[in-house]
C-alpha cells in the first residue's frame, strides 16, 4: 500500500498518527480510529503503545543521515531495539544484529557494527535503518520516503531490497512517497492524498492506467516520461498553482482552484469518497469519463 501526494498533503502526519508519534500538545488526533489486529491504537495507554511501536509496527524515515544517532556505533543502536523488545542478553543481541545487517545485504556485517554512521554512505545508512526496523519482525513497516534522499542507482537497490524482504517475511509495507515511479516498483494499492485527504484509492495498475480524479491524472501526466519518441522542446503538462497551506484550504473540493474541469458545484460542495467497485474509490463530482 502506498500513500502518494505532494509535500504538505498530510502523508507523513498520517504515518506518525498511526504510531502515535505526534507531539501532544499541540497535535491532537481529533477523531477516527486506528484498528490494528482488532485493537484501537488510540485507546491504548503509553506503555501499551510502546509495546507495539518498533515491535509490531516499525518505521523507517526519509533522511538516513539524521535519523541515526551520530555518536553511537551502528551496533549499539541496533541492539537498543532488541534489548527493549526481546529477552536476549548483550552477546546474543550482537549476534542477531550482525545477522540483521546480513539480511539487508550489507557486506561484512560484523565490521559494520563497530562503525559510526558518518563512516557509512547514504545507501548503507538506509540499510542499517531497515535492519533496525526489521529487528523484531514487525507486521507492518511504515517507510516514509525511504529513497528520496538517495541517488537513483542506490534507490533502485533499496526498493529491490524492500520488495524481497516483503516476500520473505510477509510483512505489510505502508510506503509514503511523492514519486509515482517509486510506487509502481513495489506497491499493490495506492492512495493519492491531496490537502489532508485521500482523493483516490485503487490498485496500482488500475489507478495508473485509468485515473478517475483530476489530481491523479495531473500527477501522472506531469511526470517526464522516459521515451525515445519525445520531441525536443516539447512542453510538460503542468498542474497550475500551488498546494494550499493547511490554514487556507479552499471551500468545497480542495483541488478546485487548480482543476481544469472544475464546475460551480466544486466550489460549494465537498465531494465524498465514492465506491466504484470494491477496490476503487475516488472523490470528485465529475464523471470519470468527462475528464
Amino acid at each position, binding site marked *: 500500500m502506498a500513500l502518494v501526494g505532494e509535500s504538505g498533503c498530510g502523508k507523513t502526519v498520517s504515518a506518525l498518527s498511526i504510531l502515535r508519534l505526534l507531539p501532544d500538545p499541540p497535535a491532537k488526533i481529533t477523531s477516527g480510529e486506528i484498528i490494528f489486529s482488532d485493537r484501537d491504537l488510540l485507546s491504548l495507554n503509553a506503555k501499551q503503545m510502546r509495546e507495539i511501536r518498533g515491535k509490531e509496527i516499525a518505521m523507517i524515515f526519509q533522511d538516513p543521515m539524521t535519523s541515526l544517532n551520530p555518536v553511537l556505533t551502528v551496533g549499539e543502536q541496533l541492539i537498543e531495539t532488541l534489548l527493549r523488545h526481546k529477552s536476549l542478553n548483550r552477546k546474543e543481541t550482537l549476534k542477531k544484529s550482525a545477522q540483521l545487517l546480513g539480511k539487508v545485504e550489507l557486506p561484512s556485517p560484523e565490521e559494520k557494527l563497530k562503525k559510526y554512521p558518518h563512516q557509512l554512505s547514504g545507501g548503507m545508512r538506509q540499510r542499517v535503518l531497515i535492519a533496525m526496523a526489521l529487528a523484531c519482525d514487525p507486521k507492518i513497516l511504515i517507510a516514509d520516503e525511504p529513497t528520496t534522499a538517495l541517488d537513483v542507482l542506490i534507490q533502485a537497490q533499496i526498493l529491490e531490497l524492500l520488495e524481497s524482504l516483503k516476500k520473505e517475511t510477509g510483512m505489510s509495507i505502508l510506503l509514503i512517497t511523492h514519486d509515482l515511479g517509486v510506487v509502481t516498483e513495489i506497491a499493490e494499492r495506492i492512495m493519492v492524498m491531496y490537502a489532508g485527504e485521500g482523493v483516490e484509492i485503487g490498485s496500482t495498475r488500475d489507478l495508473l492506467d485509468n485515473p478517475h480524479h483530476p489530481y491523479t491524472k495531473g500527477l501522472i501526466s506531469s511526470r517526464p516520461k522516459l521515451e525515445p519518441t519525445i520531441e525536443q*522542446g516539447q512542453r510538460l503538462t503542468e498542474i497550475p498553482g*500551488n498546494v494550499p497551506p493547511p490554514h487556507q484550504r479552499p471551500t468545497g473540493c480542495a483541488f478546485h482552484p487548480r482543476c481544469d474541469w472544475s464546475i460551480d458545484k466544486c466550489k460549494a460542495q465537498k465531494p465524498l469518497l465514492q465506491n466504484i467497485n470494491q477496490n476503487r474509490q475516488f472523490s470528485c463530482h465529475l464523471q470519470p469519463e468527462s475528464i
Partner: protein
Amino acid sequence: MTDNSRFLEVKDLKKYFPSKKKFLASNTPSVRALDGISFTLKKGETLGLVGESGCGKSTAARTLLRLETPTSGSVHFKGKNLASLSEAELRNQRKEMQMIFQDPFSSINPRRKIGEVLREPFAIHGFKENVSEAITKLLDQVGLSSDYVNRYSHEMSGGQLQRVGIARAIALNPTLVVADEPVSALDVSIQAQIINLMMDFREKMGIAFLFISHDMSIVEYFCDRVAVMYLGKIVEIASSEEIYKRPEHPYTEALLNAVPGLDSAQKNQKLKVRGDIPDPSNPPKGCSFHTRCPLKEKQCEEIEPTLKEIAPGHHVACLLKER
C-alpha cells in the same frame, strides 16, 4: 563572437580539493572532484550533465564559472580564457554567465525583500535607470505579480522562490545559464511548471543552458546533448536522442534503467549495479567504474579507457566498446 562553435569551450578541466592533513601524515591524497573534463557548448544549446551525487557535477559548474579556481585546464567563453582574466574583467564577463541553484530557500537571502534580491544584479553591474520597471517586468515574465517585490522568501513556496531564482539569473540577459539541479527540491507538479518556464526563456532569449541533474527523464526533456559523469570524468557524451536510444556505457544504461518507470513491462531486462560510488580521493585503477560494472572484464582493472568517438557526435569511454 561570430564563430558559433567556440561559444564555450572547456578543455581538460581539473579541480582537486586538498583533503584534511592528518597528524604527522606527510602526503594525504587530494579529492579529485573533477578529473579532466572537456566539452564544448554552442550558442543557444543545452547540455545536460548527469551523474550520482559526488561525481563532480556541481564542481564542474562552479569551476566553469570561476566560482572555484581550477587546478588545471582551461575554460574559453566567447574566445576568452576565463583563467587569464582579472577580477574586474571577470565580473564584467559574469553578466553573461548566470547560475540557478538547487535550493531556492538557501540561495535567496531570507532577510531581504524579493525586490531587493532582484535589484542586486543591476546594482553590481552599475545599472541605475529604470531598475524598478525592469524588476516588475522580470516578475511578470516568470509569472509572479508585481506585489511580490515586498515579500520575504519565507512568505513564498519553493516553486515561487525558484521563479525568483530564475528571474535573478535572466535579469541581465545572459547568454549562458548554469542550472544546478533547479527542480530536484520541488514537488512533481511544480517541477513541470519550472521546466516549462526555463524552456520559454531558452526559446525567447536564445540562452545556452548547462543543466545539471541526476534525473535522466528530466534531462531527456530539456537537453539537446547529454554528458554522463562518473567520479570526476565524462564517461559518455552524445545527443539526447542517441543516448536514450543507444546508451553505450554500462553506467549510462544503469542510470536509465534505474529511473522507476510507470510502465512495469520494461522492468525485466535490467542491468544491475551493486555497491556505492568509490571514494574520489582514492579512485580505482583502470576504469573507475569497474568496481560496480556488471560487464567488467580483466582488462578494465588495469587500462584506463579514454573517450572515443563511436558514432558521429557520440563519445564513450569504455574498453568493451573499443573492439
